[in-house]
Every structure is written in structure tokens, then in C-alpha cells.
């Protein structure tokens, strides 16, 4: 087995536990089935491109991006735990290089991101199946968003985990950052109709781009703006990945 695959195997073993699965499955389900239906009394329909979606369908598709973001926290948590529990050094005195360690994290978050996306798509499908317009062009959009989104958020979590030294600091920063990402985005509500400042703030948030591209894929709505969002997502993930790799490479032992 290749060293990177062995490390991915190890990453998945240590990450996939009951707590993580609850985090990954139960929370999105609460958002989709509790918040989604409860808010239906207030929000009857949400305009999306040339369609009008009911709120559960809108939030269920938003939860795919939200779940990808949450799942990539794993990357930061793996690095953080490895540093905290001495496994980072232990791996690097073993038959592995830093590059292999970094790549294994990328593959891990990619796999977890795709599985998360698939899981929420399956769970949310009954809610948005009426409006779904999957085709050969739009399915790759969801896959593209899942992978670039995983790398982007995984890199952010990795950067945070390499910069902080205390557990409290790590938890506070990661929760604050991800809370901002979750709620100042188009995952829960559309940018159209929101106050201008808020709508602008949405577009300083990578989750908005991820969610928009996923929705475009699910509801078959590809246009030039979505193309631009894909470009931002690709560039953002590339830049942040390079920064995360540099920081991880320079991490003192």
C-alpha cells in the first residue's frame, strides 16, 4: 500500500467515530426537517433563478454545502490532535514525508466531503426531488463544489490548527469562524431580498460560493455568475491550500 493511502486509512479510522457521525448526520437533519418545515409558515417560497423553491428544498440543498464545510473540520482536528497527542512527530519519524502527511489530509477531507455531500443529498432528496434537474453538466458541478469546498475549508481548518497552541484557543477560533461561515451565507437564506450590507457580506464568505454551486448543480441552473463563483472557489481553495501546506511544512518539531 502506498504511504499516502496508509495515512488516509489511519485518518479515516481516527476521525470516523460516533460523535462525528452524529455531528455529520443529526445536526443537518435537524436543520432540514425541523427548521426547514418550521420556517415554512414564515417563508412559503424562495426565489431561485427561474424557479420558486419551497423552504425545505432550499435549506436541504444548502445543507449539502454546510455539511461539506463541517466535515472538513476533520482536517483541522486531525492536525490539531496529532500535534497535541504527539502523533505529528511520531509520523514524521516514520516512513512518511511531510508532503505525504499533507496529501493524506487532503484526500481524507475530499473523501469525507464527498460522502457528506452524498449523504445529505440522499437525505434531502425527497424534499427537493420535484425541482431537481440533474444532467450530465450539472452533476459534475456538485462533485466540483464538494472537492474544492473540502480543500478550501480543510485548508482554513489546517491553518487555524497550525497557528494556535491551546485547546481552548483552537475551539474558540474554529467555532467562531465556522459559525460566521454558516450563518452569514446563502446556506439558510437567499442573498436576494436580504439587506444590502448582509447580502454583500454573504459574498465575503466561501460557503456562499460552495452552496451556490451545489444548488446550481442540483437545480440545473448554470450561468455565467455560477461560472464566476466556481472560479472563485477554485482559486480560493488553491491559495488557501498553498498557505496551509507552507505553514504545515514550517511547523517546528
Amino acid at each position, binding site marked *: *500500500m502506498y504511504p499516502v493511502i*496508509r*495515512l488516509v*486509512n*489511519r485518518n479515516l*479510522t*481516527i476521525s470516523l*467515530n460516533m460523535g462525528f457521525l452524529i455531528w455529520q448526520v443529526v445536526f443537518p437533519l435537524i436543520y432540514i426537517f425541523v427548521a426547514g418545515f418550521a420556517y415554512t409558515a414564515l417563508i412559503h417560497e424562495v426565489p431561485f433563478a427561474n424557479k420558486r423553491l419551497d423552504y425545505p428544498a432550499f435549506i436541504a440543498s444548502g445543507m449539502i454545502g454546510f455539511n461539506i464545510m463541517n466535515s472538513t473540520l476533520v482536517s483541522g482536528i486531525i492536525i490539531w*490532535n496529532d500535534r497535541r*497527542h*504527539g*502523533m505529528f*512527530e*511520531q*509520523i*514524521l*519519524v*516514520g*516512513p*512518511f*514525508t511531510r508532503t505525504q502527511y499533507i496529501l493524506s489530509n487532503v484526500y481524507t477531507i475530499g473523501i469525507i466531503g464527498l460522502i457528506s455531500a452524498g449523504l445529505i443529498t440522499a437525505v434531502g432528496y425527497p424534499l427537493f426531488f420535484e425541482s431537481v434537474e440533474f444532467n450530465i453538466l450539472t452533476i459534475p458541478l456538485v462533485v466540483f463544489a464538494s472537492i474544492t469546498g473540502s480543500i478550501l475549508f480543510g485548508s482554513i481548518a489546517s491553518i487555524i490548527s497550525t497557528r494556535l497552541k491551546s485547546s481552548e484557543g483552537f475551539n474558540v477560533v474554529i467555532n467562531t469562524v465556522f459559525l460566521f461561515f454558516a450563518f452569514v451565507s446563502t446556506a439558510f437564506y437567499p442573498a436576494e431580498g436580504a439587506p444590502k450590507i448582509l447580502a454583500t457580506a454573504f459574498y465575503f464568505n466561501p460557503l456562499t460560493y460552495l452552496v451556490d454551486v451545489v444548488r446550481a448543480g442540483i437545480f440545473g441552473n448554470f450561468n455565467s455568475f455560477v461560472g464566476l463563483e466556481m472560479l472563485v472557489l477554485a482559486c480560493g481553495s488553491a491559495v488557501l491550500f498553498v498557505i496551509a501546506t507552507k505553514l504545515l511544512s514550517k511547523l517546528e*518539531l
Partner: protein
Amino acid sequence: MSCIEARSISKSYDGILAVDSIDLSVPTGKIFGFLGPNGAGKTTTIKLLTTLVPPTGGTIRILGMDAISNPLEVRKRIGVVLQQPSYEPTLSVEKSIEKYAMMWNVDKKLQKDRMEDLLLAFDLQDIRKKKNDDLSIGHRRRVQVAREFVHDMDLLFLDEPTVGLDPSARRSLLDYIKKRVREGLTIFFTTHILEEAEYLCDEIAIINKGKIIAVDTPAELKNKFGREKTIKIHIDTIRKDLSVLLQGIRDYQIDYNSGTTITIQSHSSENILLKILKILTVNKIPIEDLSVVPTSLEEIFLTMVKNSNVSSD
């Protein structure tokens, strides 16, 4: 043939020299002890030899390979138990050994056999299903050391492996190490417990302030630096007049504790003993007990480090 050949290796952090141009030669199939006080440079030396950090200067050859230009190939053939704990908190004892074996690409069938052997050798069978997070520090350390033996290697670095272990677990580990060395493994071993080094090591290097101050076998170190013998004479009555009687004799001290004890500590303890015995006989003072305290590696270590500190100051 040497397993480790290091020449003039140095390492500085922010201008502070942690390792100062040291030479090391570790023979194959032996246990090499590396001793030194806290902050002497032991862990930095291990980090250099295990390729974890590059040296500021010097050359390192491990198992015949250049460790600076070929670190990955070196790491594939060594094992390292670092001083700090390293564990996967969410995995059970057996799962963490199994995953560690997988990371080292150990054959599946071999993994199972080795794991069972290690669980037995390190007395981990009762806690095999427990998660690492729930283990005591001693148990966690045992798992960390046991885990390292699951893969093939030619050279093993053990950085204070017995920290946190109870005496029985410590002795079992030392005996297990001896067994593995008889099978051909080479060990680079650091410890603070000098009896361990004396019990285990074929050769010992003492490092202080980043410099090697002595390298030899424990016996030779004692021979060279441990000539100072300690002799104790016990008299069962309190004799306050003894200091007057022994006037003119050097290198002894008197303690009054359930009688009188004269302790001689000198390079010529035998001569001083003869002089004191003569005085005691003349004054008809009966001796209750006379004992020679053998020189321990600990005394040599403390003396050498003290002398090294004085000379460098």
C-alpha cells in the same frame, strides 16, 4: 561495523547551540546509552539522528546511509520512541497497535501474530480493549513502546522509555530490550535512571551543555572516573572525642546517628582506613561494622557533570 556514525554534528536554535560539534559512533547489535542532565542536548541529538530536524553542521550516517541527503530511507529502517507521549486517543490499545502496523505496511498475518506477542510481553492483554484516552500514563507509555516493536527495524531510538512505568514494568521492558538486542537489534537509549543504563548498556556517552564529556563502557567509566571509594565505619556508641583523635586525617566525616559513623571518601580510601583503624585500636574503640560502598554510575555521572560545568564556567 557502526550503526550510527556522526561527525561534528551541531544544532543551534535562534543562535543558541543545543548540540555542539559532537561525534558519535554506535556499534551494531549493541545498546548505546546516552546520558545527560535536563537540557543537555539529548533529545535534540535524537531528533538529529532520527532525521526529524536537520543539523546546522556535521555529517550523520545511519545504517550506512547519509541521513541528511536520504532521510526517508533511514526512517524506513529505524524505530523511534519519542520522549513525549504519542497516541491516538480514540483508538483502543489493540486497534492502535494494529493501525500502527498498517502504517508501517506490516503484512496482515504478521500484524496479528506480533500484536498478540506484544500484548503478552508488555502485559497489555487486560486493557487491550480500553481506549488510549482512558489509560493511565504508565499504561499509555507501555503501549507507545510496545507499538514500536510491531514493525521491522535495524535500529531503535528510545528516548526515556521507562518514564511513568512501575518497577516491574520497567524491568520487563529492559529485559525485553535485551532479548531484542540478542536477536540483532541496535538500541540508542536515553534515560535519567542511571541504574537502567548500568543494567542495560554496553557503552555509554555522557552529554552536558551540548558536548560529549565521556564515552566508554560502564565498567571502564567506573574504572577511569570512579576511583573514589566510600568506606563506612560504624561504632555503636557516641564518641564526641573522635574528631580530636582523628585530627590531621583528611577526607572523612563523622555523623552521630544511633552511634558514630565515620565516612571516608577519597581516591586513597584504603590508606585513610588504615590510619583510622590504627587510632581506633590504640584507643580501644570497638568497631561494630565496616562497609565499602561500591561506586555507582550515578556518582560518576554527577561528578562528571559537575566537573564539566565548573570547567565550562
